[in-house]
């Protein structure tokens, strides 16, 4: 492989998580309507932010998280900067707990994700309630949270493998 091709490949690998996260935002903005709309759409970008914050923050640096959050703000039509702030806060907290998660079992990491998702939901709910001027109902958010947490292991299985086998090793 030539020098240039190798450089390109390395660049591609380094940028892959950011691309995935962007695609996650776009997928979340598409009319997915899982199970004919009965199941809520999970907060897909949170998977990416959590996974790479815990295992390899260099692959999804803060500017990428910021851009991902901002794109989500634009696509949902909500206040600008809200999801950017929420995701960055999640990254900050998760990164500070990296040493705890090092070498732990998958289920422990899953619990960690549950905590992170709860925190994210709480922040989101508080901000939106503050803006609406009253406490908003929690029902819809709770369903979405449940869908997000339940789907995390599936994501972890797939992207964990991808990260270890393709992005880091090959």
């Amino acid at each position, binding site marked *: 492989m030539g020098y240039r091709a190798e450089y390109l490949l390395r660049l591609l690998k380094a940028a892959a998580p950011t691309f995935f996260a962007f695609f996650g935002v776009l997928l979340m903005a598409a009319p*997915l309507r899982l199970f004919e*709309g009965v199941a809520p759409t999970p907060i897909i970008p949170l998977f990416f932010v959590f996974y790479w914050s815990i295992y390899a923050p*260099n692959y999804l640096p*803060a500017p990428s998280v910021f851009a991902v959050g901002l794109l989500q703000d634009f696509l*949902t039509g909500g*206040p600008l*900067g809200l999801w950017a702030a929420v995701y960055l806060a999640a990254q900050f907290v998760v990164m500070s707990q990296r040493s705890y998660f090092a070498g732990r079992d998958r289920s422990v990491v899953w619990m960690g994700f549950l905590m992170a998702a709860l925190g994210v939901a709480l922040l989101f709910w508080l901000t939106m309630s503050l803006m609406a001027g009253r406490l908003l109902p929690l029902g819809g958010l709770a369903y979405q949270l449940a869908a997000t947490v339940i789907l995390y292991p599936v994501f972890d299985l797939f992207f964990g493998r991808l990260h270890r086998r393709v992005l880091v090793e090959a």
Partner: protein
Amino acid sequence: MEYLGQNKREGLGRKANSRFLLILLILVSLLLLLSSLYSARASVFEKAREGVLDATAPILEIISGPIRAVNDIIGYTSDYFSVLEQNKALREENAVLRQWMNEALELRETLAAYEGLDTFSSAPPMRSVDAFVIGEANSAYAHSMIVNAGRQRNIEVGQAVIDDRGLVGRIVDTGTRASRILLLTDVQSRVPVYIEGADVDGILVGRTRARPAISFTESAEPAELAPGQRVLTSGAGGVLPRGLPIGVIDGERREEIVVRLYANYNRTRLVRIINYEFPSIIDGNAGAQVESRAAATPSEG
């Protein structure tokens, strides 16, 4: 996991990754949040929203294609298992609809007689644009959809959006090729409505739940409302045309009158955007009648 500690390898932020940058970006986004709250309609944000809408519309259209196909297959298979019940329900509905058809044909004749009168002036025609839903907010507190029609097809902010069941929402952002619909369930949604048969006006207020509530002006006299009464747009405020069906009264919950919408947002796919120009009083020939018509529609601020 044994895979930790690999951050010496390359990543996008190999050099840039630092806690300082992270905190700085948090501050930036908080600042952005505050400024976009205080001036949500500032031209900078508006332009940015339109730009992103236009840039992402083609991608969303590509993504929503396969999703639509998969959902169709799932829909067909689940339909297949309930063919008998559906057939029965459709036959019953057909019998009712046939009666309605006869009634409508009679009414059409009566109407034709009225239209022949000199004093009759018809409401201005509605022009409409059909569009597909290509995006959805999928957020617990921001309820909106993105459709693949924009300023290029004369879509403007404020226009009503309906589907085959009833009112879906109204346009809040327009790009050149895509625009955003604010759904009736969104917290920010306010639509002037009236209740058929009760002769009261109110405002339909979204509350993030599936069923929005009607709030009445304080001066309004208490009206007798029963579940099942139809709720339609009142045309007050001069934005949405009068008489678009919204839903039926569902009942009272915690001192709020709750409306069951006709629109089913899980199935909204093809929508019609209505470009309706209200009859203006200055308008040339049929001046007097138009004026009386405008006066007949109650207007409130």
